[in-house]
Every structure is written in structure tokens, then in C-alpha cells.
């Protein structure tokens, strides 16, 4: 009984049987028919899943024979691990899809049976080993699909269905002709048998046979530009059906392709090219698309061609072992994510992506939506992430670097249009998208759960300790459950978690990890405390912050580049979502995400190249890269530079830093930016000092750092907005670290480490002060403030310490950074660079003074008369930072010595330290003595004045008691002396900071979109034209490959 029930052939038998019975039963009892339909779907889904377990536990691959005769004389089906996996996926999607389609199928028994038969057709495509039989199943699938398309009774759906039939008929005609010819040549229809007789397929006839076979398969995969019909289907079919076409039918086609690949080996390159072009073109065109379902269509076609390309390329490289992970992963990812999105699109009934605005009023839906998109884009922990990683590694190892570029570029484009859509959903709107029944959402939830489960499983199958590596995400999700408890309680829970974690992790770190661990986790904790100043319920704030901070730990603990990359992507996700929380952040979130992903992809490409050379993904193995060292260093360096906001790549930075929630701005600029520096440290320490080509890379890096420092500072000078000033300043400061790192000397690295610590301290301080100001004043334009020193004296003190520590004026910590850096540059022989660095550092005085003066000094606005000091939760972390800055100022060796010792593990120590005296090859600096001398002369000067004051009457005067040249202007800010404060500087040097980088990236975006719209010209919507394309396509294929056979 069990054996009979578990026969895989039942997948076909039950579907056919129930399918034919349904219309009959429906006459007597529609309810029974409905139940039977559901039962059949459940059975169809359960059976292959059970088989997956059995096969995994050692059951043999099932060879199913029909008609009592063994192949090649009869049709045979195979049901092994691969088939079971695909069938399980497809049937699971069918089960959820059937559930989703409940309303549409109600009372339509015929439609139910067609749905069952469609599932059966796809199962058959996957299982059959007979070419002619494959043709039959493809036909069944096509007709069943057409039947389902007509469920939506409107002209568009019907014409789409008709175009679909034209196209698939052509495809199956080619297939049939191909099969005939192959049968003629080999005398068999059985795929395995044919493979054994492949020698017989040669000459012109063989070529024609193969061409036709391939053509039939390719058309099924909807190659660009002969795929307009497919897009029309996605756009106009009922979403439940479109999901089934996108997921089920495409999966069948993909698997069929997999089966016939061994028969058409000469076509591998052409197939790969077709898939690659389709992948890129779909994603380019997707940029221009605003209709939800058509957008999903482009994405579907893109994803399936990516899977096809992966399949073909891995076959070509003879790396079959990776196929299950890569193709299986991509398939499963696409399955859940795309089906889920189609279902969601159906549930929301909004055809235009813009109309998804206001979805954020429904956080649960928004979360589901976000997960599905993240999965499609290939973010961890979803299966697509692991598949893409493995694919890139394998392609790199096979030397197919161009393909890596194509895949990463396509993925980036896909991320652009998908997350633009997400951004629209995040926008506030008066009209919430209308929502249909709950039944439509449940399958989406199951799909999301499926994605998580599959992701975890995929991670485990990579040999990754999934629980540990994915912990930041899981803990973040768990914290989400606390969303209804008071915000500050959530904050405390986060603090406890991160605190405990840091306490466990930090002591175990050594070397550079210890330094950055202390910065990232210590600084992060401090910022977490600062966040407590807001008592409002910021949904998701603390879970995401926790995830972010734990991901820092992930970076530290990463032993392999894979683990590092997972943590890196987690940082991207959590920071992106946190940024989305900012009130006016919407216009900046997309560029933030795109540049973050681009950064991640560059890093991925770098890791791939390193793997290609060393064969290991251990981070420690980076050092062994020799031949490609310069290229790997460039890729990794560029990736981290994007994230660091290097000059030219910085366009995302000011908006993101300025528009984030005020406490998160501090986190981003002071702490998060250090993650990029940490990445650069790792890359440069492993690869930067090998000599040869890497010297050039390091030299260029040095200049990039300086240009970043210079332009960051210069742009900061011209800002009216307090947080923008700080944002550009952060950009500039990171530039110094890059330059110091790029020297590749011990002293330079000490300088970079010192600068990083110092920047964390003062920039955290300054941003927290800014948070307090924005909180109290409610504005960010500096000229709208003034004279706040009397209201917020502690904040003023904090900012003063912060700007002195930034400026490099002795005796505070800043001077140490400048001294170390300039010494490093001079010792390295980078003299002009040193001069340039000096100029950049002098520019900082301009914006620093403007900031503190315009906000705290000068005339106070009447409206600000009663403002209070910033809240305690902001003041306490500020004072902690001030205390640390002062401690390191009093005795700089407390900081220099450990940093120098860490760097001495990598390069020979060049700093001599005698007590408090630090000596480089060129100069010397005794910080302890400096601060004593300065303190003494300051005290003496103060005493003089105090003494003089004894003899004179000092009268404290009111605010307006000055010689005041007043007038009543039309635009008041233009005559405010603090407005456009450095207008003369702008006249002198402003031409340097015209937003050229922004213009460039706008151009890139514009051109990409234009290219996308150019590529669309083929989609006329005319069925005949589409048929012509298909014919021409096949002809082209024939001529293209014919030469090489």
C-alpha cells in the first residue's frame, strides 16, 4: 500500500485521474470536487518531499519504466535527487498557488483540472528521459497554461494567451523537428541512449538537428529579444497563474535544458551567450518599467536566464558538482521569492509601482515584501545569496571574469529597480494600497518562511556554522517580537545582548581585529545608549541596531571571506533599513543601497579572484595571492572605498549621513564608516605590501585618499546644513585614513589606526551634539541658530573639544593624527601629497569654526530663548567621548603604543618610544609635555586676566549690546553674516566643487535607463512580429554556431 502510494509515477497518474474526474464530480458536489483538488495538490507536493528525505537517506534513484518494456524501447522516467528536488519545488509552488487561487478557481472545476494537469506537465518535463515524451509534456504544459490564462476574461489576457500559444507552438515545432532528425540519426528517442550514440550526430544534418532541439528549448526560456510574448503573459495573466508560469513552467524548461545539454555540447557557448544577453537586457529594461507585473516579468526572465547561464557555464567548466548548489539554490530562491511577489502583487491590486506608496502603514506586509525583494537581489541568508557566491567563485576559478562582471552588473541593475519599488512602498501616502483577502497573504508568508528555511539549509550545506553566522539576523528578528514593549526597554534589552556579546567576543580578538573590535563594538554600544534619548516607538530601530552591531562581531569573527561577506551584507541590510527610518531619508535610501551593493559586489569579485588563485576562501589565504594581487587589491580596495565614500564615489554619503535619524547618523559616520576602513586594512595588510603591481595601486589609493580629504573638507565648507557639514567632514577624514594606509609603512598604518580611533571619538561626539541641537531647535540650517552657548553649555563644550580634536591643533588628540600622518607621508617620500594633506587639513578650520560659531556663538534667535540643554541620554555618551579624548590627549602613548604594537605584527616597528617621547625617523613629539606646557601657559594667561579683572569692573551685557548695523532685508538669510559664510572662498575655489560626481552618476543612471528603453524597441506587442523574432532567432543561432561545429 505504502509502496503503491509512494510510486513517483503517481505524480502523473493522480493528476491525470483527478483532473479528468473533477468536472464529473463537480456536477454532483462542487465541494467534493474542491476537496479532491486540494487533496491532490497536497499529495502532489508531499510525495516528492517525502522522496527527498528517502533519497537523502540512501534510497536508490527510481527508474520508472512504462509498458513493461525496458528502455530504449519504451518511455522511462527518472526520479532521483535532482528530479525530486525540482518536482518538490514546483509542486509546492502549485500547492500554494492553488491555495492562492481559491477565489478564482471557485466553481470552475475545469480550471482546477487544468491547473492539476499543468503541474503534472511540468513534473513530466522534469522526470521523463524520453525526448519525444518531453515534447508531449511541453505541449501539455503549454496548452494547460493557455487554458489558465483565459481565466482572466479581458482582451489583454486573451491576446497575451494567444501570443503565448503562437510562441510555444513554434518552440515545440522546432523541438519536434529536432527530435525527428535525431531519431533519424541515432535510431533512438531515449536521452541516455542517444548520448551514448552521439558520434552519429554530425554533419549538416546533425547540426540542423541540434539547432532545432536547442531552439525549442531556448524559446521556452524566453530569450531576449524574442520574449515579448512571455512578458505579455506575466503582465496580463492572473497573478496566481503568472506565478505558476514564472516558477513552475520555467523550472520545467530549465530542467529540460539540463537534460538535453549533453546532447548539444557544441551549443554551450551560444546558449551561455543567449542567457547572458537575456539576463543583462531584462535587467536593463527593468529599469524603465513601472508596471508591477511586467517588472516582475523582467525579473523572472532575468532570474531564469541567470540560472540557465549558470547551468551552461558550470557544465562548460566541468564543475558539475557545483550545479546543485548554484542552480538548485537559484531555482529555490526564484521559486519562493518570485511566486511570493506575484501573489503579493495580486493581493495588493495596484498595477503601478508608484501606487504601492503607503504600504509602510502595514508593517507586516512591508516586511514580507522586503524579504522577498532581498531574496531576489541575492542578500543573505536566502538561498540566492549562497548560489551567487558559489557561482562567482566557480566562474572566477574557471577564469570567466567577464561573466562574473556580467552577473554582478545584472544583479545590481535588478536591485535598482526592485529597491526603487521598495522605496516607493516606504513612502508615506494618504492612500494606502487596497488589500484583498487574507487568503492571498498566507501563501506569501509560507513562501517567506520557505526562503528562510531554504537559506538556513543552504548555509548549512556550505559547511558554514549557520546558527553562528546568521545569528545577527535571527536575534534581530527575535527582538522584533518585542515591538510593543516601551522603546527604552527594548533599548536596554539590546544593550544587554550586545554588551554580553562584546564581553564574550572582544577579549578573544588580537591584532587589528582587537583594535577595530574595540572601536566598532565599543563605539556602537555608546551610540546605542545615545539612542535612548528618544522615547518614541521607533518600529524596528533596536532590532536593526542589534543586528548591525552583532554583524560587526561577524566581521571580526569571520575566518573565511564567505563569513566576512555575509556579515558585510548584513551590515548593508540593517543600515539600509535603519536609514529608511529617517524622516526625509527617502530620496537617499536607494542610492545608499545601490552603492552599498556595488561595494559588496566589488568585494565579492575580489574574493572570487583570490579564490581562483589560492583555491581557498580563508581570509588568511588572501596573503598567498601573488599573480592577481594588484587586481584583487584594486577590487577589494574599490569596494571598500565606495563604502568609505571616497572621492567620486561619495554621492550617496552626504544624503545618507545627514538624513538618517540623528542618533543613527552618529552611528553611521563615527562607527559604521570604520567597518570600511577595517576592510581596507584587511585588504591592504594582506595584499598591499607585495611590491610589483600593488605599488601602483597603493600609490593611486594614496591620491584617492587625499582627493577625498580635500574635496570632503572643501564641500563641508560650503554647507548650510549642520549634519551635511559633518557628513562631508566624515568623508574627508576617512580620506586621511586611506592615504595613511596606502603608504604601506608601519608608521602609516599606525597613523591610520590612530586616525580611525580619533575620528570615532570626535565624530561620534560632534554628531551626538548635532542630535541634541536638532532635537531642541528642530532645524538643521545653521544660520537659523546662534548663541546657543548659554542654553546648551555642555553641548558647546562637547563641540569645542570635538572640533579641536578634529582640527589637529595641539594639545588634543588631533595633533597626534596629523603628526603621525605627515611623518608617514614625508618618510615615504610622498612630499606633494604631504603638502596637499596640509592644505586639506587647514580647510577643516573653516567649516569647524563656522559650525561652532554659527550654532553656539553670535546672536541668539529670540525663539530659542528658552531652549534647554540636550537630554541626559545624549550628554552622557558625549562626556564619555570627551573623557576618552582628554585621556588620550594627556598621554598619547596610551593610544600610540598599542596601535604601534599591533602594526608591528605586520611590518617592522619604526616608532621609538621613550617614556612619553615618540620619535619617528624625522621628528619627535612628546604629547605629555606638550599638554603640560600648553596647560601652563593657558593657566598663566588666565591668571593674568583674572588678576586684571580684579582691578576693573566687568559688566555682563545683554545680547544686543553691540554696535549693530541693521537693516530689514527681503530675504533675511542673505544678509545674515553667517549665511553663505565663505562666499568669497566659493568665488575663489567654488568651481572645484561643482557637483560633478553627482552629475556623472546621474549620467550613468540616465544612460542605463536610456539603454533600457532602447532595448525595449523589440516589444511591439504584435504576435506576428514576435513569431518572426523567434524564427529569426533560430536562424541566427544556426548560422552563429554552424561555423564552429
Amino acid at each position, binding site marked *: 500500500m505504502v509502496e503503491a502510494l509512494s510510486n513517483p509515477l503517481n505524480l502523473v497518474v493522480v493528476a491525470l485521474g483527478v483532473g479528468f474526474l473533477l468536472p464529473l464530480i463537480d456536477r454532483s458536489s462542487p465541494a467534493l470536487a474542491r476537496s479532491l483538488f486540494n487533496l491532490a495538490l497536497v499529495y502532489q507536493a508531499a510525495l516528492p518531499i517525502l522522496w527527498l528525505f528517502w533519497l537523502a537517506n540512501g534510497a536508490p534513484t527510481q527508474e520508472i519504466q512504462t509498458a513493461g518494456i525496458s528502455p530504449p524501447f519504451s518511455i522511462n522516467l527518472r526520479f532521483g535527487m535532482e528530479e525530486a528536488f525540482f518536482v518538490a519545488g514546483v509542486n509546492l509552488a502549485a500547492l500554494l498557488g492553488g491555495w492562492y487561487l481559491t477565489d478564482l478557481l471557485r466553481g470552475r472545476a475545469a480550471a482546477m483540472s487544468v491547473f492539476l494537469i499543468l503541474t503534472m506537465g511540468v513534473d513530466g518535463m522534469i522526470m521523463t528521459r524520453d525526448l519525444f515524451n518531453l515534447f508531449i509534456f511541453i505541449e501539455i504544459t503549454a496548452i494547460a497554461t493557455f487554458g489558465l490564462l483565459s481565466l482572466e476574461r479581458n482582451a489583454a489576457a486573451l491576446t497575451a494567451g494567444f501570443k503565448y500559444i503562437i510562441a510555444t507552438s513554434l518552440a515545440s515545432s522546432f523541438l519536434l523537428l529536432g527530435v525527428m532528425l535525431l531519431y533519424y540519426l541515432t535510431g533512438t528517442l531515449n536521452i541516455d541512449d542517444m548520448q551514448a550514440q552521439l558520434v552519429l550526430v554530425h554533419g549538416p544534418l546533425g547540426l540542423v538537428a541540434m539547432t532545432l532541439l536547442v531552439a525549442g528549448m531556448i524559446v521556452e526560456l524566453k530569450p531576449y529579444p524574442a520574449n515579448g510574448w512571455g512578458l505579455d503573459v506575466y503582465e496580463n495573466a492572473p497573478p496566481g497563474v503568472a506565478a505558476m508560469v514564472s516558477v513552475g513552467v520555467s523550472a520545467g524548461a530549465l530542467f529540460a535544458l539540463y537534460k538535453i545539454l549533453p546532447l548539444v555540447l557544441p551549443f554551450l557557448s551560444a546558449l551561455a551567450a543567449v542567457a547572458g544577453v537575456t539576463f543583462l537586457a531584462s535587467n536593463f529594461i527593468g529599469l524603465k518599467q513601472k508596471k508591477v507585473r511586467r517588472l516582475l516579468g523582467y525579473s523572472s526572465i532575468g532570474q531564469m536566464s541567470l540560472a540557465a547561464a549558470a547551468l551552461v557555464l558550470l557544465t562548460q567548466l566541468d564543475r558539475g558538482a557545483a550545479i546543485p548548489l548554484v542552480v538548485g539554490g537559484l531555482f529555490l530562491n526564484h521559486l519562493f521569492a518570485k511566486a511570493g511577489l506575484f501573489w503579493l502583487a495580486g493581493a495588493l491590486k495596484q498595477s503601478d509601482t508608484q501606487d504601492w506608496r503607503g504600504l509602510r502603514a502595514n508593517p507586516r506586509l512591508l516586511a514580507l515584501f522586503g524579504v522577498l525583494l532581498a531574496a531576489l537581489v541575492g542578500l543573505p541568508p536566502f538561498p540566492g545569496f549562497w548560489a551567487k557566491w558559489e557561482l562567482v567563485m566557480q566562474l572566477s576559478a574557471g577564469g570567466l571574469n567577464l561573466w562574473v562582471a556580467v552577473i554582478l552588473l545584472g544583479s545590481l541593475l535588478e536591485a535598482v529597480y526592485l529597491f526603487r519599488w521598495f522605496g516607493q512602498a516606504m513612502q508615506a501616502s494618504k492612500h494606502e494600497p487596497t488589500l484583498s483577502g487574507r487568503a492571498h497573504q498566507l501563501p506569501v508568508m509560507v513562501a517567506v518562511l520557505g526562503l528562510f528555511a531554504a537559506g538556513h539549509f543552504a548555509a548549512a550545506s556550505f559547511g558554514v556554522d549557520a546558527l553562528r553566522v546568521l545569528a545577527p539576523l535571527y536575534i534581530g528578528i527575535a527582538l522584533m517580537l518585542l515591538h510593543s514593549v516601551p522603546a527604552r526597554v527594548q533599548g536596554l534589552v539590546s544593550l544587554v545582548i550586545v554588551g554580553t556579546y562584546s564581553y564574550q567576543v572582544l577579549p578573544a580578538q588580537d591584532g587589528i581585529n582587537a583594535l577595530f573590535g574595540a572601536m566598532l563594538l565599543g563605539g556602537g554600544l555608546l551610540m546605542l545608549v545615545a539612542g535612548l534619548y528618544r522615547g518614541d516607538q521607533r518600529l524596528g530601530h533596536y532590532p536593526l541596531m542589534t543586528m548591525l552591531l552583532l554583524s560587526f562581531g561577524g566581521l571580526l569573527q569571520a575566518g573565511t571571506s564567505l563569513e566576512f561577506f555575509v556579515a558585510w551584507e548584513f551590515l548593508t541590510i540593517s543600515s539600509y533599513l535603519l536609514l529608511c527610518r529617517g524622516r526625509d531619508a527617502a530620496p537617499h535610501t536607494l542610492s545608499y543601497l545601490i552603492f552599498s551593493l556595488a561595494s559588496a559586489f566589488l568585494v565579492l569579485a575580489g574574493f572570487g579572484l583570490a579564490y581562483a588563485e589560492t583555491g581557498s576562501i580563508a581570509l588568511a589565504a588572501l596573503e598567498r595571492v601573488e599573480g592577481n594581487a594588484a587586481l584583487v587589491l584594486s577590487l577589494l580596495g574599490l569596494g571598500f572605498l565606495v563604502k568609505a565614500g571616497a572621492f567620486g564615489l561619495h554621492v550617496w554619503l552626504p544624503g545618507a549621513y545627514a538624513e538618517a535619524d540623528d542618533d543613527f547618523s552618529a552611528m553611521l559616520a563615527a562607527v559604521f564608516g570604520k567597518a570600511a576602513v577595517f576592510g581596507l586594512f584587511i585588504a591592504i595588510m594582506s595584499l598591499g605590501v607585495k611590491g610589483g603591481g600593488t605599488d601602483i595601486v597603493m600609490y593611486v589609493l594614496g591620491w584617492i585618499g587625499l582627493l577625498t580629504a580635500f574635496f570632503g573638507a572643501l564641500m563641508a565648507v560650503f554647507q548650510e546644513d549642520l549634519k551635511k557639514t559633518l557628513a562631508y567632514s566624515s568623508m574627508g577624514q576617512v580620506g586621511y585614513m586611506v592615504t595613511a594606509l596606502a603608504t604601506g609603512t608601519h608608521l602609516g598604518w599606525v597613523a591610520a589606526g590612530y586616525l580611525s580611533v580619533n575620528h570615532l571619538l570626535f565624530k561620534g561626539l560632534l554628531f551626538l551634539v548635532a542630535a541634541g541641537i536638532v532635537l531642541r531647535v528642530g532645524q538643521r540650517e545653521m544660520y537659523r541658530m546662534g548663541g546657543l552657548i548659554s542654553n546648551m553649555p555642555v553641548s558647546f563644550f562637547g563641540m569645542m573639544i570635538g572640533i579641536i580634536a578634529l582640527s589637529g591643533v*595641539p594639545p588634543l588628540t588631533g595633533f597626534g593624527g596629523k603628526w603621525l600622518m605627515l611623518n608617514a607621508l614625508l618618510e615615504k617620500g610622498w612630499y606633494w601629497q604631504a603638502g596637499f594633506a596640509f*592644505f586639506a587639513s587647514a580647510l577643516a578650520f573653516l567649516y569647524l569654526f563656522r559650525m561652532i560659531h554659527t550654532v553656539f556663538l553670535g546672536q541668539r534667535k529670540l525663539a530659542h530663548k528658552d531652549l534647554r540643554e540636550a537630554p541626559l541620554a545624549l550628554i552622557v555618551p558625549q562626556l564619555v567621548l570627551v573623557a576618552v579624548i582628554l585621556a588620550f590627549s594627556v598621554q598619547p602613548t596610551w593610544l600610540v603604543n598599542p596601535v604601534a604594537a599591533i602594526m608591528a605584527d605586520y611590518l617592522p616597528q619604526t616608532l621609538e618610544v621613550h617614556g612619553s617621547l615618540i620619535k619617528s625617523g*624625522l621628528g*619627535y613629539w612628546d604629547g605629555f609635555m606638550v599638554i603640560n606646557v600648553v596647560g601652563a601657559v593657558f593657566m598663566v594667561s588666565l591668571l593674568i586676566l583674572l588678576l586684571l579683572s580684579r582691578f576693573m569692573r566687568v559688566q555682563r551685557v545683554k545680547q544686543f549690546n553691540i554696535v549693530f548695523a541693521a537693516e530689514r532685508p527681503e530675504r533675511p538669510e542673505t544678509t545674515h553674516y553667517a549665511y553663505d559664510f565663505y562666499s568669497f572662498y566659493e568665488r575663489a575655489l567654488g568651481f572645484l566643487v561643482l557637483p560633478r560626481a553627482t552629475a556623472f552618476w546621474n549620467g550613468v543612471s540616465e544612460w542605463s535607463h536610456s539603454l533600457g528603453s532602447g532595448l525595449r524597441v523589440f516589444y511591439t506587442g504584435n504576435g506576428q512580429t514576435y513569431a518572426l523574432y523567434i524564427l529569426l532567432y533560430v536562424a541566427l543561432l544556426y548560422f552563429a554556431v554552424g561555423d564552429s561545429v
Partner: protein
Amino acid sequence: MQNWPSQIGYFMLNLTIVGLYGMLLSGIVARTLAKVQGRIGIPLYQPFLDLAKNLGKRTAVSHGVMFYLGPVFRLAGGIGTLAFVPVLYGSEIFGNFSMAGDLLLAMYFMFFGQLGMALGAGESGHPFSAIGIARGLGQMTAYEVPFALAIIAIVVQYDTLSITEIVAAQQGGIGNWTVFTNPLAVIAAMIAFLGMTAYPPFDVVMAPNEIPIGPPTEYHSSYLAMMTMNQAVFAGAKLILFMALFFGGATNLVELVIKTWAIYMVAVVVGAAFPRFRVDQSIRFFLRYPTLIGIAAIAYTQAVLLP
């Protein structure tokens, strides 16, 4: 640093000498300029009288704590700069606290007083102060460029950042002075010096007839007295630094007086001869030829002096 008390005592001596000399120098300059313009001018001791008058004022106005501390920062900046520069070469008494740090320390510490006073002046709430500071800072960023390039050139030339060692390398004859071994660097530095002294054509910062004396507009009585003191000390410290770096330093006080007076006269003579630049003009000016000269100085040092 075994001998703190005597070290401090020596420094007080230096401070007094440089302070008095600085005051005298401003008298000399005022009188020189008057002669150029065909006036008789003030007596040489007038600055001392002014100082005494300001110190003797019995009333003052304060706009707040930072305003009060502004002159303190300013004077501490001047004294501190002097403290980090050795006054006479080869003399323990005139060595000051230059063992605390090298040339970079002195260069960066010069900003201390300016920044501190800028904050104090800012609290006065007077727009002219703020405008003057903005101009001053803007011009400063520009003239620091040729100055830094010149400094880098001589650091490359002498392979040290230590002021004492730079002076040591110039001993043994006038031909060893930087001004003769590395003239390009000195030209760049001297043009930067014109900006630092804020004589015409670079006097928009104070711009007496436009934003009456700029930054210190609201300062008066004892505050102003402290600033006058600082002006003397700070000018002296800067002159000594220039002398040490470019003109062979000094081994005795007479040499010091002659050399620093001569250096100062460069700015005075130029100042007497030129009208005022606008700020953006002066910024561009410094970033053009002086900067090019500075770059050339480094190239010259690398190509000609090092091999």
C-alpha cells in the same frame, strides 16, 4: 627635563625679551610706515603707552565665558608658540621647550590662539567679528599652502623635522643658509609670510575702514591689552621660526634682532607699496604662483639637492 624650575625661569626670560622686542618692533614699523607716507608718526615707545593705558582701564564689558576666555586663548597661543621654538641656537638658556615637539608642533600650535580667540570674538555677537574671522581663516588656509610646501622642501633638504637640527645644518657660513641653498622654498615661505602678517595687500582681515578691525572689534581694555601682548610675543615667535628655518638661525641676541627685523621689514615694505586684495583674490593669489613656487621648491630639492 630634569630641571623644571630653571627651565621655566629661562623661558620667562625669553618671554620677556621677545615680548619687549615685539612691542618695540611694532613701534618701529608704525614709525617706518609713517615716514613712507610723509608723516612724523608715533614715538617708538607708543605701543608701551597704549598697553599701559589699556591695562589701566577700570571698566570692561563681557559677553560671556568664551568671550572672556578669548584673549586668554590668544595669549596662551602666542606664548605657547614661542615655547616650542628654540630662540638661539646652541644655547640651553634660549632653547625653550623645543624638546616637546618638532616643527609640525610649532606649525599646528600657531592655530591654537587664532582658533581660541575666534571663538571668543564669536560670542560677542558682533557681525564684524565673525566676518573678519571668516576672512582670516579663509586667507589662512590659502597662505598655509605655499608655507607648508616650503617647509616640506626644507624638511626633505635637511632630512629632519627638528628645528634645532635644521638650524645646525645651516651653520658654518652664510652660504649654508636655506635662503641661498634653497631659494625657491624661501620665496614661497616669504610670500606666505606676507599673508601671515596681514599687512597690505593681505589686510582684509582687519580691514580698518570696512569692518573696523574685524575679529577684535568688541574687545577693549584689558582684553585688548592681552591681545597687544600676544601680538608682540606671537610676531616674535613667528619671526624667530622663519629666521631659524630659512636664515641660518641666530647664536646671539644681536644677530637675532638684526635678522628678525630684516625679515619683518619685507612685509612692511610690501605693505607700504600695495593696495588691498579682496579675500577671494588673495586666496587665489596664494594658490597660484606661490603654490607653484612651493611645488617647484620640492622638485628642486628632490632633484638637485638630494643626489
